[in-house]
């Protein structure tokens, strides 16, 4: 593809910006935390040998169906350390780095040397709980480690949806023009005029049991208007280009022209609002969870930790740690977006000379 050299050149320019590189590094760090969350904080062994077989119960944190059936049959009830030793003296286990659960408070005697988790005002950050514990005694650090998955998924999934819809609608309107453009522009305008939060609150109420996936889908289905407008503009500009006329003369169909010839050239300016959109999606999701309209309690979203602080402001650690995490993540995506913009926009490039 002809656009190859362009992206290499853009990457070279991006690499020269230390802040943008640091932001990219931070996103990479979050991905690592999200991937290895069950091995970083949890109460289920990463790997264990029980009655002659090897299991990885920690995978249950990704999906409860991954919990090996044998532990339910032997009545472990989620507490592994004691049960493993009692029911099979031969067993061994590799434990997560930090023995705390994101969904429940650790009880007394569950782990040698670890007292019962404090709850309410007594959960001040301490050596045992670096980020404190919430009202119910659940460790905030464990919650935040597992909440990283939600924060990252929200950004990627909702902007994946928004990007697809936005590019599709914008490309159709911009390329074909005429009545198709009139219809797509009108639809874009309608979605734009309805206050986003109102749209989201109404849809969340309609879905009876909203999960985190519903929230992502809703953010995606409401957040595509800016991308559509930009794509439309790019397609309008590029469809008159000489290489497009040449492709048409060579017999390429509209679909081929749109996908192979125009889209690669329009991609750079479209990627910028998508990156900013990831930051906005994370803000919207944490805002919704904060208002109490996010996914129900078992999901550990950063915003839901903040919600707990609303009723008890003396528990400042419920605001500071997740608040800073949301802020840094949003800032990182915004910096990546800006770096991308400066690296790919030829007008800004000239200004640097």
């Amino acid at each position, binding site marked *: 593809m002809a656009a190859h050299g362009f992206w290499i050149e853009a990457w070279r320019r991006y690499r020269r910006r230390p*802040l943008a590189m640091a932001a990219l590094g931070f996103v990479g760090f979050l991905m690592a935390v999200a991937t290895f969350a069950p091995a970083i904080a949890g109460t289920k062994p990463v790997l264990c040998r029980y009655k002659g077989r090897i299991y990885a119960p920690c995978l249950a944190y990704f999906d409860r169906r991954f919990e090996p059936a044998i532990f339910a049959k032997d009545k472990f009830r989620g507490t592994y350390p004691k049960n493993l030793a009692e029911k099979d003296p031969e067993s061994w286990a590799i434990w997560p780095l930090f023995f705390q659960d994101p969904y429940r408070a650790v009880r007394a005697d569950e782990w040698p040397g670890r007292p019962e988790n404090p709850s309410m005002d007594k959960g001040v950050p301490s050596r045992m709980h670096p980020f404190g514990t919430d009202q119910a005694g659940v460790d905030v650090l464990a919650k935040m480690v597992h909440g990283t998955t939600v924060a990252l998924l929200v950004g990627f999934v909702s902007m994946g949806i928004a990007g697809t819809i936005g590019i599709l609608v914008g490309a159709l309107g911009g390329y074909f023009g005429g009545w198709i453009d009139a219809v797509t522009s*009108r639809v874009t*305008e*309608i979605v*734009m*005029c*309805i*206050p986003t*939060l*109102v*749209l989201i*609150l*109404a*849809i969340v*109420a*309609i879905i*009876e049991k909203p999960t985190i996936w519903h929230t992502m889908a809703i953010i995606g289905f409401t957040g595509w208007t800016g991308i559509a407008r930009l794509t439309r503009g790019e397609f309008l500009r590029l469809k008159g280009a000489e290489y497009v006329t040449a492709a048409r003369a060579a017999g390429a169909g509209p679909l081929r022209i749109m996908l192979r010839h125009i889209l690669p050239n329009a991609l750079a300016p479209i990627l910028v609002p998508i990156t900013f959109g990831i*930051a906005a999606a994370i*803000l919207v999701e*944490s*805002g919704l969870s*904060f*208002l109490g309209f996010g996914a129900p309690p078992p999901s550990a979203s950063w915003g839901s930790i*903040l919600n707990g*602080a*609303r009723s008890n*402001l*003396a528990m*400042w650690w419920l*605001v*500071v740690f997740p*608040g800073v995490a*949301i*802020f840094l993540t*949003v*800032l990182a995506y*915004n*910096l990546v977006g800006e770096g991308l913009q400066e690296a790919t926009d030829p*007008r800004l490039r*000239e*200004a640097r000379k």
Partner: protein
Amino acid sequence: MVTYLVRRLMLGCVTLVAITIVVYALARAMPGNPLTAQLGEDPSRKVSAADYERMQRAYGLDKSWPEGYLQWAGNLLRGDLGRSITRKQPVTTLIGERLGPTLLVSGTAFLLIWTLAIPLGLYASARSGTADERGVSLVLYALYSFPTFVAALFLQIMFSVWSKGAAWELPLFGMADLPPDAPLGSRIIDVARHMILPVVCQTYVSLAYDTRFIRATMAEAVRQDYIRTARAKGAGPWRVLFRHAFRNTLIPLVTLLGLSLPSLVGGSIIIEQIFTWPGMGRLFFESIRERDYPTIMGLTLMFSVLTLLGQLLADLLYCAVDPRVSVE
């Protein structure tokens, strides 16, 4: 020009009809209705099935949503926005009550934003590339990424919880503590003290955004040929900045101003919710929770009209100021 205006207005009406249909259908599709949302909370107000049916008929809730919408639209054409079901007041009265408090906060924030953003933006572009400009820009960028609800909670903790009894302690929420018969002077101070935190929260994000916007448009203007000409003829750096560059960035600024019209009147749902400020944003949030269809529709209509008007205004101003752009 006139044909363009007529076409835009007609298209705007079509858009409005579509928006209100979508929102009405969504509102009616939410589980429960104003009666269940209201009666469900209070067991002492349990009503018999017959009473419930009678009330449903009285409010037109027994009809299907298309019928309900047509009735609402018909009343609207006669200039009637309807009555709130849960608050037993005309929707226009409710909006009128809430408009003042919202304008108080968002208007103050608006003034603060523009009196600070223009000098800051000009400063940033004049000192472009220097260490202090990079520092200011980075701080603004960080502020822009800081979620308002986190900032609101931080400020509440700092100025209400940790400053208990101190001179700088500020009220946690609400709009006034003093009764309405207290002397006027102390009541003004009371409301002003309640306003500080919501105003700060509403100001900082837009301030950061607008300053960056001004800096970006200035950077664009500074690259133009006429700036080089001005420099060549010997104009000083500040003169070039004000007389030649800044005047040309006024057009995008005016557009931005037009587009911020809805948020000025609409307020912020999250900020008003955190500080329990009795404004429009909170009314919207409450009306959705109470399934109060007439209020939801009235507010939606107002927001949409303002958004469309803001866009139209921005487009028209653009053409009026820049002869190179035509409405066609």
